[in-house]
């Protein structure tokens, strides 16, 4: 059952000429800040801000799976947990998974399962936990970006990097990386995640959509999303680089 109102609210103006409510261009990302390796206990971790979203990802594994009957003899079992802190949203959220979190966890896990080289770790588990400390629109995309960096930080072999961003339709215009107002009052929300390999977008790992768009608008959404993803990908790589350089400095 829906725990909260998923209805569209009354409208407000979102687009002013060629600018958005927060001054961004249609194809402009929000500010993004990424830091890898910020937790001690986890095998890999990442702190990420994407606009007002603040998320922390941790990766544990490959490690033993308990109880044994949950093991898979031919590959690693992947868990992904998207969780919102009670204070992450305007109205306090009751702790524990709701239906929305369960669905987001499922499609996010599936996106990562498609790129993690699970066959290298039979009987093992790889656990990806992402905490949303502050949520604005696009928290699932922020979490996937953080998870992807945390997986690299943990040394988990992957076919490439997963990079995620949403596109919205706001006042009839397709806009990249929507913030809360565009999500609430806009006409559509389309979260994407791509596999990027060899510096190129290769395929789609996550795709959802709700709202109302035409086929042409979808084409525009893909264009925007790929542009945004490439920019985020650069920042993910930089964050990983920075962690490795600082480690090399420390160790060497």
């Amino acid at each position: 059952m829906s725990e909260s109102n998923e209805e569209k609210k009354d409208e407000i103006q979102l687009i002013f000429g060629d600018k958005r409510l927060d001054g961004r261009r249609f194809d402009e990302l929000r500010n993004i800040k990424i830091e890898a390796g910020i937790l001690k206990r986890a095998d890999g971790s990442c702190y990420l801000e994407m606009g007002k979203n603040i998320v922390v990802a941790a990766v544990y594994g490959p490690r033993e799976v308990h109880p044994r009957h949950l093991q898979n003899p031919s590959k690693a079992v992947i868990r992904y947990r998207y969780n919102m802190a009670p204070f992450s949203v305007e109205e306090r959220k009751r702790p524990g998974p709701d239906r929305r979190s369960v669905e987001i966890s499922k499609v996010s896990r599936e996106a990562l399962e498609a790129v993690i080289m699970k066959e290298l770790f039979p009987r093992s588990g790889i656990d990806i936990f992402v905490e949303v400390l502050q949520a604005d629109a696009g928290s699932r995309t922020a979490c996937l970006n953080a998870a992807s960096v945390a997986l690299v930080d943990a040394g988990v072999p992957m076919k490439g990097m997963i990079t995620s961003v949403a596109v919205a339709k706001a006042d009839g215009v397709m806009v990249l990386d929507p913030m809360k107002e565009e999500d609430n009052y806009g006409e559509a929300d389309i979260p994407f995640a791509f596999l990027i390999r060899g510096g190129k977008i290769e395929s789609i790992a996550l795709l959802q959509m709700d709202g109302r768009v035409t086929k042409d608008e979808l084409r525009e959404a893909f264009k925007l999303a790929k542009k945004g993803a490439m920019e985020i990908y650069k920042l993910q790589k930089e964050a990983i680089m920075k962690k490795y350089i600082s480690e090399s400095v420390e160790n060497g």
Partner: protein
Amino acid sequence: MVEDILVDIKKDYVLSKLREGERIDGRKFDEFRKIEIQTNVISKAEGSALVKLGNTQVIVGIKMQIGEPFPDTPDKGIIITNAELVPLASPTFEPGPPDEFSIELARVVDRGIRESEAVDLNKLCIEEGEKVWLIFIDIHALDDDGNLLDASSLAAISALLMTTVPAERFEVGDNYPLPVRNLPVSVTSLVIGDKFLVDPSKDEVSVGNTFLTITTDQDDNIVAMQKSGSYLLKEDKFFEILDVSLSKAREIREYLKNI
């Protein structure tokens, strides 16, 4: 053990047929199984429909209650969609609270109805800010021979089309038909490598839970999409599937208009 081997054999068979450009039941790649819709099968519900997609059977019942509106939409009715994958419907379903599959199913069906604005929620306000109609869409799987999702979407919109708002029972005026103004139709494809099959049967799904569902409305707008399952999808393939989904949805919508 025996079941694992059976699944493997089925998988090989499905894939080998596929290489020959065929489906195991002889259907074309873009062909649905036979659709049957029986409406108003549950007289105690406000509306109901039993949908058969080949051997897959789903029943949806609509119940309505009076409740408080959400603070930010004080003049609108509320839709609540719920799915029960009861163990009667499949040897792999277990009793218990909804798991991620039934939650995803309910939410994707819900999105199609919600985003197409199929139900005119503005006409379901009884007293602004105080009392609105709650519409419970309860999806009850009976026989899972593949593609429960499209069967559920169809049953949901069919049941809504048949729904009478029970105003008299709640003593708030005369009964009236639920105002339905759009016909969202979901089309689910099984994506296998660079091929895809609409309306996959259970045997076909032995190759993997790799689906793309696209829901469209009567103006060919896309109103909901869900990539489900761990696989990678190429952009050009996506647009191919989109075209097929739009055209199949149009066919099914014609059928739906005549129930």
